């Protein structure tokens, strides 16, 4: 992998949490390179640091030491306001419980990231329609989350994650709350986004069947990736 292909690179990243004098170390000297266009499944036992890894990649948490570069640019030291702006442009988050705003319609939820862009109202509406079409929910634009199934809500969340056209999608157990068929539908959408639209995806999952949709799987245990992943 040449450095041009690398979208995100973690170098010697430490992550520690200190709680009432007790310090727990999640990562120590963690190195990771994520190629542009990759689709990575991250697996590992509960508490191994999977969510923490996504938070670091997404710029909503900071490493205790080491550096994180995105497209060659360091993001770990950016002030919060710059980081928020950076997230808006480059990251799409997808959560296990969708995290939609219950009082907004599907279209209004999807529009949220566009409010951070310079797009006018008409352009925003067009982008929202397109994003909902990608996840097959064009006919649900005016529906509220409570009027939709879990699978449909997660598809709205995916539309929200991609509407501003970020390069990296970070999914934390996106199918963790769904049954098999709904899960497969979501995973198909993610695969489509990866293959057809070139999105780089990092997906945390406990489900080996879900991991099969990814191009490769990283096993995280006690803050380290297992050997065979590093070779991959």
């Amino acid at each position, binding site marked *: 992998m040449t450095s041009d292909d690398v979208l995100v690179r973690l170098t010697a990243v430490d992550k520690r949490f200190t709680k009432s004098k007790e310090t727990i170390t999640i990562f120590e000297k963690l190195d990771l390179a994520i190629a542009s266009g990759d689709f990575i499944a991250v697996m590992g036992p509960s508490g191994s640091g999977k969510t923490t890894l996504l*938070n670091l990649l*997404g710029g*909503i948490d900071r490493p205790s030491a080491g550096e994180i570069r995105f497209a060659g640019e360091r993001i770990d030291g950016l002030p919060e306001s710059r980081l*928020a*702006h950076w*997230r808006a442009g480059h990251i799409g988050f997808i959560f296990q419980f969708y995290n939609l*705003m219950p009082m907004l319609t599907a279209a209004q939820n999807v529009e949220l*990231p566009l*409010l*951070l862009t310079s797009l006018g109202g008409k352009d925003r509406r067009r982008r929202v329609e397109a994003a909902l079409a990608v996840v097959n929910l064009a006919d649900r634009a005016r529906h509220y989350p409570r009027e939709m199934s879990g699978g449909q809500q997660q598809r709205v969340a995916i539309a929200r994650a991609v509407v501003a056209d970020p390069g990296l999608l970070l999914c934390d157990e996106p199918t963790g709350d769904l049954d098999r068929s709904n899960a497969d539908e979501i995973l198909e959408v993610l695969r489509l986004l990866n293959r057809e639209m070139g999105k780089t995806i990092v997906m945390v999952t406990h489900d080996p069947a879900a991991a099969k949709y990814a191009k490769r799987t990283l096993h995280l245990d006690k803050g380290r990736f297992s050997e065979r992943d590093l070779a991959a």
Partner: protein
Amino acid sequence: MRSLLLQIAATIKINLKSLPQRFWLSLSTVVAVGLVVVVLLSFLAMANGFRQAVKGSGSEDIAIVLRGGSRSELNSTISRDQIRLIEEAPGVARNAEGKPLVSAELYLVVDGLKRATGTKANLPLRGIGPMGAALRKSITLAQGRMFEPGSNEIVVGKGLLAEYRGFELGSTVKFGTTRWTVVGVFEAGGSVFESEIWADLPVVQSLFNRTNFFQTVRARLTGPQAIAALKRYNDEDPRLKLDVKTENEYFADQSSNTTDLIQKLGWPLAIAMAFGALAGALNTMYSSVAARTVEIATLRAIGFGAFPAFVGTLVESLVLSALGGVLGAGATFVFFHGLTASTLGESFTQVVFSFTLTPALALQGIVLALVVGLVGGLFPAIRAARLPIVAGLQG
């Protein structure tokens, strides 16, 4: 900048649209703030109504003369000689026959019974001369006729009739050992005089054993500037040394103590209650932030700033308190505005007035409500802005 406005608009929308999820808690804040405003505004409307009633009776071209240093009619005495000097004073107007337009008066307190409660109250009985009614603004007889000079007849103000028992036209009332017949009911444009009983001065003097006893002199001036001349004349003659005021000045003095007192009761009470409402608002808004933790964190993860989270929370608080303020002002208007009451005036007599809520007063109430909302929303809003994203996403 545009993006910031869009973020703020979206956050406010999300906040306000989530209000139904916290309906009862939010409603309790609205009600608490509303009650504070009702308390404040009812006091202010009372003070205002009282001031209007008292001020409404004053004119610029009527002079009121009391003994020097006596703040009210009850404490004043004026001699017949002094009255004669005033009748000859410069600035005092005369009628076509050349008679000075002057009314020497006696002012007494008699007992009356309140219609509503049956409790005793002090009512003012005024002995007036033939010029007395004409020396007051907009006196008209609503029922009956004027008392006959020399007879035991009285006319009563409309406000007094409404508030006290036994003053209906034609009825007989007893003051001490004397009996009087009500022969007329007069209106006085809502002024303090509507709370008075009038009778012929010589009759009152003799029946109450106050022969040759006067308390005030009322004089029509030749114009608004004439008061200066009359004051100078009074100051220069050692036999006078009386207090000379225009009727307007006199009534303003009379009402200022009472209105001050009402306001001095109303504001502290309302502010003390406002602290209670503030505690409620803080509780509601902290709960709101707690309930919206995941939403706030999600928006932040998407790239929204901390400031919109701050503004959204603050606006929610301000909307709730403004709602309380408007409801409070509305409730005060519906339940108190126009309500007739009577209160102890400066002269230990009843002044009938009606609570008067003005837009300016309502605004004061709403401003107090907004202050409660601002302070009650500020600290929760800071918490919302400082919410750590990672912890927030975990709910």
